[in-house]
């Protein structure tokens, strides 16, 4: 179990900053998911941690030891790159043993560790196969086993699920989670998918513009994203950027792409976006519209049955052609006939609006 402290990391590619004064602390034994869109520098960060790329400035400390200038050979990192790269000319057994042999361990130790890690990754029946003979999911397990065999201080995973088909994805994610917990290996898991982060993360670091923008437990970020972009990266429903803000006698008026929202208080700080939870909406069936509530008019685009009692309705916003609102409600609450292309009016209490 090690902790990792990254300070002031910068890296340029053709004069453009990929990492820009990045700071990040990784706790002992945690599984940290680095979440960001492609090109945000998360893979670069991973390669710098692995020692494959040297940063221009900044430092990396492993348990207070400066490893910034260490070559990969001396770092004890388990690196699983995005493409499933197994050594094509070696069978599974030799792939897994590669790191152990490079470390010049005794044959007994190598065999023992091989047995342990292949059983851990459930690939002990594949040992004599060649990479071209096994499936994508199996390849990823072998790659993981190869990285885990050397019992790394840190495990670095780059989009490990991206090339696996949907059915195998969850199983593999759970395996990763399980071995990470069993071995208590400090793990950095890079992905662009918030779903994967939801599935396995201890903590999530959201990255863009070459920096870690927000770090914390997933639910915390979900509830309190620092800004609109983070909310969007987190894949949260019903977030909209603020186009324009002004104050009037009632309070602040926020202009969004789906319409205006009148708040009953004056905001003191600038905000970048708002979020309204799908469950905060209610459907107004009466003719009377409440002054105090925020009103949206729309047309039902589709109705998705969530379970026996609840449905999610996707509503096209009137006057905002490409925008839609997701609404969660119980079947009982819908007093109108839930049919596509019927018009309806949504209302929401201003206090339910999350500002960030």
């Amino acid at each position, binding site marked *: 179990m090690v902790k990792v402290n990254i300070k002031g990391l910068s*890296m*340029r*590619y*053709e004069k453009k900053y990929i990492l820009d004064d990045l700071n990040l602390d990784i706790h002992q034994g945690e599984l940290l998911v680095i979440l960001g869109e492609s090109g945000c520098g998360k893979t670069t960060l991973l*390669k710098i941690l*692995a*020692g*494959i*790329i*040297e940063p221009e400035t900044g430092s990396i400390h492993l348990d207070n*030891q*400066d490893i910034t*200038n*260490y*070559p*990969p*050979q*001396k*770092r*004890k*990192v*388990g*690196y*699983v*790159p*995005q*493409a499933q*790269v197994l*050594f*094509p*000319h070696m069978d599974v057994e030799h792939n897994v043993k*590669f*790191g152990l042999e*490079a*470390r010049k361990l005794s044959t007994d130790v190598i065999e023992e560790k091989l047995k342990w890690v292949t059983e851990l990754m459930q690939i002990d029946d594949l040992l004599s196969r060649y990479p071209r003979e096994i499936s994508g999911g199996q390849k990823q397990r072998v*790659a993981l086993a*190869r*990285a885990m065999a*050397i019992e790394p201080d840190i495990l670095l995973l780059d989009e490990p699920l991206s090339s696996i088909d949907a059915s195998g994805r969850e199983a593999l994610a759970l395996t990763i989670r399980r071995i990470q917990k069993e071995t208590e290996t400090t793990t950095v898991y890079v992905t662009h998918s918030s779903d994967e982060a939801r599935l396995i993360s201890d903590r999530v670091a959201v990255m863009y513009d070459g920096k870690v923008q927000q770090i914390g437990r997933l639910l915390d970020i979900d509830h309190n994203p620092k800004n609109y972009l983070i909310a969007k990266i987190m894949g949260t429903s019903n977030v909209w950027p603020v186009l324009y803000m002004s104050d009037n006698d009632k309070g602040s008026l926020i202009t969004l792409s789906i319409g205006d929202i009148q708040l009953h208080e004056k905001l003191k700080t600038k905000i970048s976006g708002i979020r309204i939870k799908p469950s905060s909406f209610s459907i107004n069936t009466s003719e009377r519209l409440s002054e105090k509530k925020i009103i949206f008019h729309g047309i039902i685009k589709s109705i998705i049955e969530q379970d026996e009692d609840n449905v999610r309705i996707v509503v096209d916003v009137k006057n905002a052609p490409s925008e839609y609102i997701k609404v969660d409600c119980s079947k009982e609450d819908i007093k109108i006939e839930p049919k596509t292309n019927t018009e309806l009016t949504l209302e929401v209490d201003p206090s339910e609006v999350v500002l960030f």
Partner: protein
Amino acid sequence: MLVSQRKKTFERKALVNKFTIALAIIFLLSFLASFFYLPLIRIFQYGFSSETGNLAIILREIITDKVNLYSLAFTFGQALASTFICLIIGLPAGYFLAKYEFKGKKLLINLLTIPFVLPPIVVLSGFLVTYGNSGWINVIWKSLTNSSSPLISIFGTIEGVILAHVFYNISVIIRITIPAWQNIDYDQVEVSRTLGANKRRIFRKIIRPQIMNHVIAASLLVFVYTFNSFAIVLKLANPYYQTIEVLIYKSIRVSPDFTEASFLAIIQLILNSIIIIIYILFDRKSRQSAEGKESNLKTTIFQFSKQKWNIIIRNLGVIFFLILVGLFTFLPILAVIIRSFIPDKVGNSAFYGYQEFFSNKEISVLNANPLTLLGNTLWIAAISTVVTLLLSLIIVFILRSRYQSIKRYKTSKAESLISYLIILPMATSSITLATGVYLQFRNTSLFDNAVWIFVIISHVIISVPFATRSILAAYNRIDVELLNVASTLGASRTRIFRKIELPMIYKGIIVGGLFSFAISLGEFGATYFLAREDFKTLSIGIYDSISTQTMQIPLAMASLLIFVTILCFYAIHRLGEIELKV
């Protein structure tokens, strides 16, 4: 304390690494400089210097000389014509071979490839045996028509040269275009068919753009080969028609005029460079468009029952055409082998040529002992191969340093430097190369005493681009991430090279080695130029004796060359990396 110590060790290791790479670069550069670039500069020196009279006037005389002008026109004209005819026959042949499925198709394709990989001198022998004045075709014609004039006259005629070139190069077109036809995206064809496009429109809008790059690349390749043709033109058409190569050769070796020879060599070099650069551009394009595609051409099987007459006739036509093309390209090679067993004189045995060859005595038509020629050929090829591989591996080793540069996200300067350095040897014809080597070294005692060294050097310079290409092709298939992973797993750089890179490129190395071996085996131009009297290889022996009364001896030698060359290319083929030579 410990940390800083470690850091120092790493820095020292990195320094040693940089030092060895620098050493490798210096070695490579000094080799290329002394045996390629300085000779090239020497050509320019001679080309633009004159001891007698005004240089401008002399150069104008060279340019306006009737023989030079006509030869320049001929060089272009015959190359264009040969390429064009190769296309006319090769394109449909390639299409049929891609489209139709039949027994022995693979064999046919391989047979069609054979002339292309054979040394020009062997091809010339086959051509003479088949189309020469007492060749098979003319003998049959004469006995059929009872006339005394031959059907085809190949000596001193433009038809002879073009026929020989077409026969030699048609397989280039066929080989390159078969995958092109197979890779056409037929979904697009079907979609456009449903959209009501007619056949012509489909061809123009969909098929043509997809095969165009391949066709142009293949045509340029044929153009380069025929443009640089030497042995065939020297034997068949001189003095009526001469290529620039023949002119250069003659103005150094026959009636020495170094200014003229060098100036012609410069012209040749410039023209070749232009063609090669265009070729590389199109080749890259065609490779890109072929990348990741699998054959999706629906093949057709010949069927003759229960079909309409027109289909049967069409099928018969296709079969007839393919047989004709197969005969045209393969018959002369077969003829060499068969003819080597037919006695020239009553009383000679069928094995006379081979007996003489292995009898270990001097043969007067060769003025040498044929086993010595075979020995010379083999050890020259062996040394050339070793040196070529060594140089190629050094090049690869230098390029390997780019993985250090990637650490800093910079493209390696060494890589681009080297890729430029090896383009020029590609664009240098063997005669131009030999001219440079000759002008540079002719006054050294080494040249007088051990000309074979320069033969080897020219063979090496001719083969290095091919060998490097095939090794690099293998090297570039290695995913960088593999090396990254290996290093995180604790493997040292040498271990990575030994355990990962080497096993993954060894096929490429073998292919590169076989290539340079085969090239050296059959190389004629530079060898003949540099070492006519002093040092003979099989190719030169064949050339010297091919038109003597006893054809069996040269043809036995040619058959041996065929055998060894085919063996080499069969091995390359088995390794699955047949790359066309440039």
